[in-house]
Structures are given as structure tokens and as C-alpha cells.
């Protein structure tokens, strides 16, 4: 029965032998053959009728968007405008949703529970924990996402992203990474898990690993709201009201660009040490500009992107709200579990320019970055409740109808602009969410690289926040 197998081996041996007799470049010559044939066919069957004004216009636009002098400023400006529109545009609907879901929806549900004489151990976790967290996530996240995603998708459909990749290719190559990493980086601005999956377009395993490990430096949509909110409350408020939006969006832009810088830095570090190797080249065809189909864009980005991301946030936020309610209400000895954790982490937090509340929030929020801010608020109410600032009681997410009240609450809990700045930096540099960690494991099949990708950003965050805190305090306490 091994006869067929034998003839198959003979066939392979014959091929091996024949290969020696062929000219060494026979493959290239055959490829040239194919190219020549298509050129002949195209020459015969394609006619150009007159000069096209559109082609000339596209060339001019391409030259503008990819030139050294105008390309980079345009990229930064585009991102800045998108962020500014998101921050300015999200305020009103956010306040509206908060008023509807939190200010009115929550008391209404409570009265409903009282009317049904639901026991406190049931209505507490369900309404104060689960519902309130969910309501917060929806009102804080939905408006910015509903503005940010369509704007981003319009840029994508128009054909701008490949130009960004083209502009950044040079820099990625210089740090020893693949030019296509620019594409996975942009995907990461939507969602890091999606960015990690998108690294499949990179063929070289070495360069792919670099792209995976450093993708977390792209601010994902779970972190944009944190950045936007904290920048508005702590940095925007430092400027006169007319400029607040501009200052806030500029500082978010700064953090996003810092992320790009850190991505280059960490890619460079990896490619010079553990992931050394040749940079591979690739060809990227700049696609034609296409007028975006606005209705289609709105539909896809709202239904396929916003809704999915929001749903994910809710799915993770709801159980987290439950856990929060529990650790805030179950007591061990004198204080609650959360109280013990906050107290224990406070010194570490101080060192990083943060506080114990933020660190506990980041532990609780590992499943989804989206719930960091709601968790911080809830824990702050708990921690400051002892000094009489909170009136709602332990573990109930505070009702904040505008960002002024949010600022008052946080400043009351001892937050300073330093806390805000360090939180923005830590939000950029901390471990990826659990979905992304799992995706990294699925893509790399390596516990070691998953650990590197998880811990590397934390190391950057600790160094960055620690340094900023030391410098800030030195300047603040120095001679005036």
C-alpha cells in the first residue's frame, strides 16, 4: 500500500532535481512574464479619453497630505479637530442623558423598589450598584463615541488612513518596526483588542510581536472618555472659560501624541534588544480618495461600532458595579473591604501623583477601561463619606449632573491638577483591559509575551507618573 506514497516521494524528488537545472532567477522572470502580459492587455483594452481634472486634483492633495512639511501638521491638526468636536459636542447630550438616567431614573427605580417592598440586600446591589453604574457608563460614554466614531470612520472611508501609514512608515522603519504598524496603531485608537487582531496584516513574526506589545499605547475608546472628562475638569478649568474646550482638547491631543511617542520608544527598545532583526519592506498602494457615503458611515459607525463597544462596556460594568457595591458594604473589622484597599494603596498612589482610590479603581476596572471614572467616583464618595462630604451613603454612585459638581467632589477629596494630569498619564500607560490581554494571548500563543505586553505599559506608567509627581512637587514647594 505504500506504493502511491512512494510515487509521490519520487515526484517530489524529481521536482527537486529539475529545480537545479533552471536559471536561478526563473521565478522572477516568470513574474515579469505575468506583469508584461497584463501591461499588454491593459494597453490594448483601456483607453484614456482626455486629461482628467480629478486625477490632477488627487495628486495635488496627495502631495499635500504626505509631504514632510504639510503632512505631519495636517495629521496633528485633523486629530485635534476630531477631539475638539468630540469634547465640545458631547457636553450637552451627556448632561441630558445623565439627567434622564441618573438624576431621574435612579430615584424613580428606588421608589419603585420601595413600593414593591424589595429587601435592601436585593435593591442595593441591583439599583445602586448595577443600574447606577450602567447608567453612568451610558451617559458618559455614548455621546463622545457617537461623535468620535463617525468622524473617524469618515476619515477612514475618505482614504486618509493609508496616507497616515505612508507618513509614519519612515519612522516605524527607523525604530525597527513594520510600516503597517501605523495601521494597527490607528485601529488601536478605536479598540486595542481590534488593533491586536489587525496585526495579522504584518507578516514577519518579529515585527508583529512589536506591534502587539506596543498597541496599548494607542488610547482606546474606553480611555478617550476618561481623558476627555479629566482634561475638561482639571486642565480646561485652569484656562478662561472661552478657551477651556481648546485647552482640554489640546491636552488630550498631547496625551495621544505622547502615546505615539511611547509606541516608537518601546518599539525601538524591543527591536534593539529582545526582538532584534531585519526590517522587512512592503508596498502600500495609496487608494483613491472616495467621497464618504455619509448615511452609510453613520449607520455602520453607530450600529456596528458604537453599539458594540457600548454593549461591551455595559456587560462588563454591570457585574463590576455589583462587586463595587459589595466591597463598599462588606466590612472586615473597622472598615469595608474597599476602605482597607484604599488605605493600603494610598502611599503608592501618593508616590505616583495619584491616590489609593484611583489604584483600586484600576484594579476593579481591569475588565473594561470604560468604568474607571464611575468606579473612581463611587469610591471617592465612600472614602470622603467618613468626613461628611458624601450624603448618599457608602457605595452609591454619586449623582453628578454637570462637570462642575464632578470637580467639586473630586477637589473635596483632595484632588489637584497634579492628580488629574497623572491620572491622564496613567490612563495612557497601564495594563490593557482583560479582553485585550486575552486577545494578545490568543494571537501570540505565548504567556511570556502576554505578560510583557501587560506589564510593559505599567512600568512606563509608574516611571512617568512618578517623575511628573517628583518634578511637580519640587517646583511647587521650591522658591516662588
Amino acid at each position, binding site marked *: 500500500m505504500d506504493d502511491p506514497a512512494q510515487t509521490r516521494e519520487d*515526484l517530489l524528488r524529481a*521536482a527537486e532535481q529539475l529545480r537545479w537545472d533552471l536559471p536561478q532567477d526563473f521565478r522572477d522572470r516568470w513574474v515579469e512574464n*505575468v506583469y508584461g502580459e*497584463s501591461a499588454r492587455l491593459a494597453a490594448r483594452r483601456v483607453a*484614456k*479619453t*482626455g486629461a482628467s481634472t480629478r486625477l490632477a486634483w488627487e495628486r495635488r492633495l496627495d502631495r499635500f497630505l504626505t509631504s514632510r512639511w504639510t503632512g505631519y501638521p495636517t495629521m496633528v491638526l485633523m486629530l485635534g479637530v476630531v477631539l475638539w468636536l468630540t469634547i465640545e459636542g458631547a457636553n450637552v447630550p451627556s448632561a441630558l442623558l445623565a439627567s434622564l438616567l441618573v438624576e431621574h431614573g435612579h430615584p424613580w427605580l428606588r421608589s419603585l423598589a420601595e413600593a414593591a417592598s424589595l429587601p435592601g440586600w436585593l435593591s442595593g446591589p441591583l439599583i445602586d450598584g448595577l443600574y447606577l453604574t450602567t447608567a453612568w457608563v451610558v451617559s458618559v460614554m455614548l455621546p463622545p463615541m457617537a461623535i468620535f466614531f463617525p468622524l473617524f470612520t469618515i476619515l477612514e472611508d475618505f482614504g486618509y488612513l493609508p496616507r497616515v501609514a505612508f507618513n509614519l512608515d519612515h519612522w516605524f522603519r527607523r525604530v525597527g518596526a513594520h510600516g503597517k504598524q501605523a495601521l494597527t496603531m490607528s485601529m488601536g485608537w478605536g479598540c486595542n483588542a481590534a488593533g491586536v487582531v489587525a496585526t495579522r496584516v504584518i507578516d514577519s513574526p518579529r515585527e508583529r510581536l512589536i506591534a502587539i506589545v506596543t498597541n496599548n499605547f494607542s488610547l482606546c475608546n474606553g480611555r478617550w472618555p476618561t481623558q476627555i472628562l479629566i482634561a475638561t475638569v482639571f486642565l480646561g478649568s485652569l484656562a478662561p472659560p472661552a478657551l477651556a474646550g481648546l485647552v482640554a482638547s489640546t491636552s488630550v491631543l498631547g496625551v495621544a501624541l505622547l502615546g505615539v511617542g511611547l509606541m516608537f520608544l518601546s518599539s525601538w527598545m524591543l527591536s534593539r534588544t529582545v526582538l532584534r532583526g531585519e526590517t522587512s519592506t512592503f508596498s502600500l498602494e495609496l*487608494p483613491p480618495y*472616495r467621497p464618504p457615503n455619509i448615511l452609510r458611515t453613520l449607520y455602520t459607525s453607530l450600529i456596528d461600532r458604537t453599539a458594540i463597544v457600548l454593549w461591551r462596556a455595559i456587560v462588563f460594568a454591570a457585574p463590576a458595579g455589583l462587586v463595587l457595591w459589595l466591597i463598599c458594604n462588606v466590612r472586615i473589622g473597622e472598615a469595608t473591604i474597599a476602605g482597607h484597599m484604599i488605605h493600603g494603596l494610598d502611599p503608592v498612589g501618593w508616590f505616583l501623583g495619584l491616590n489609593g482610590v484611583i489604584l483600586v479603581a484600576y484594579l476593579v476596572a481591569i475588565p473594561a477601561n470604560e468604568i474607571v471614572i464611575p468606579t473612581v467616583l463611587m469610591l471617592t464618595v465612600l472614602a470622603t463619606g467618613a468626613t461628611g462630604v458624601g450624603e448618599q451613603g457608602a457605595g452609591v454612585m454619586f449623582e453628578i449632573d454637570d462637570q462642575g459638581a464632578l470637580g467639586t467632589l473630586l477637589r473635596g477629596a483632595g484632588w489637584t491638577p497634579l492628580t488629574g494630569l497623572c491620572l491622564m498619564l496613567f490612563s495612557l500607560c497601564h495594563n490593557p483591559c482583560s479582553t485585550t490581554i486575552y486577545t494578545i494571548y490568543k494571537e501570540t500563543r505565548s504567556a511570556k509575551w502576554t505578560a510583557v505586553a501587560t506589564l510593559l505599559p505599567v512600568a512606563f506608567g509608574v516611571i512617568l507618573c512618578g517623575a511628573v509627581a517628583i518634578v511637580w512637587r519640587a517646583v511647587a514647594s521650591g522658591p516662588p
Partner: protein
Amino acid sequence: MSAHAPEACAGCPLGKARLEKLGVATGAADHVVALAGNPNTGKTTVFNLLTGLRQHTGNWPGKTIARAEGGFVYAGARYKIVDLPGTYSLLSATPDEEVARDFILFGRPSVTVIVVDAARLERNLNLALQVMQITDRAVLCVNLIDEARAHGIEVDVRGLSRDLGIPVVATAARQGEGIDDLLREMHAVATGAFAGRPRRLAFDVPGLADSVRRLDRAIERSFPGVPNREWIALRLLEGDRKVIEAVRDGSLGELAADHAATGAG
């Protein structure tokens, strides 16, 4: 505009046949369609138009990483359609090219639709010629014809069809233009009503034609009836590991068995 075009067309007759979108519910399909083409030529738009699905399309190359599947019914036949990742060629062994190539070769599609950009025909035809090297059952879809027109580019579709030996259809998938023609030609090739005689390239390298012929005979001995022997021979000469593996474990033979069963039109 294009968002409404499919709904408007679903009810109206397309020639004699009509299109019914099945989304992902492909079930047992009568025919399998593979969508191949260069990156960013609108494969996914064609795919969405036929299946009624909303795979995310994006104006940058390499958007489709894995392959997407969907279904539709046309002229009473159930079709499964597979959106392959966009590739520039089938010759090098990058993962996305392997996905595309393996599906066309081993996925046994009833018809392969090669989507090309009308304004970039010279570059795009490279892939078309390579696909035609693997399969007889191909339809060339010259997409984005509206953009080409805006650039003052005219494509002689009939002439191209005569040169290539396969059906050629001009479409503007975003506007739904030409989709009826595409469906009709796909159906004709899939059912065997039209048997293409695709143009095969001559081997312009000394000794290559001879080596291919010798291997061709050896392949026929090991795998009687296997299609595309020339292409397999070429891959063996290049030392393509995947094809060598398929020869060694005999899985190349399954291709022949299936080809005989479906009956080459």
C-alpha cells in the same frame, strides 16, 4: 443612494432571475463563489451587496483579514459566497495570500469572481492572470467603473473578455450598477452553462516549459485527474512548502476526486 439600491432591486426582476439575500444563513449551498482581488478594489462592497450583510468596508488596503462568508439565492440556486483577503499576487507565501490561494485551489469554488479596479487595470490584471492559472471557472468583475469614468478611463469589456477567455462584467458596486450582469455571468459559469477557456501564460524561461511538462506527467501518475497540473508543477519547482506537503500526504488527490464529481463544465 447605494444604501437603498439593494432593497429596491430585491423585489424587481433581474432579467429572468431574482436575487434573495440570505445573510450568514448559507445552509447547504448548491454553488460556492470565491471573491478574489487586489486590496481596496471593493470586494467587500460586492459581498455586502449580494448577501445583504454589513461587513465593515474601509478605504484602505488589507481591511479584510480573515475570510467572511455569506449566502444568497439566485435563479433558484443557493449560493455561498466567500470574501477572501485582498492580495496583490498568489505567488509569495504571506498568510493572507495563502488564505486566498488555498481557498481557490482547495476550497473548490464553483466560480471565482476576480474583482479589479477599473482605473488600475494594468496592475490588477496580474492577480487575475494568476487566478486564471489555477482555475477555469472565473469571472472578471471590473469594479469602480464610475471612478474610472470620472478619470476619463474607458475599459473595452468585450475585448478584454475575448482576450482573457472568461466573462468580464463592468460594475460600480457602491451604486449597485452592473450587479445583475455579474450575477448572470456567475450563474452561467457556476452551473456550467458557460465554459471559459482562460488564457494561460506561455513559459518564457529557458528549460521551464520542459521541466513543467515532465513534472506534469509525474503529477498525473500520482494524482489522476487533478486539475491545474501546470500550476502545481510550477509551485513544486519553486519549492512551495504547502504544495509539497499536499503532495506528500496525498491531500492533493481529494481535489481531483471532487473535480470529477462536480463535473467540469
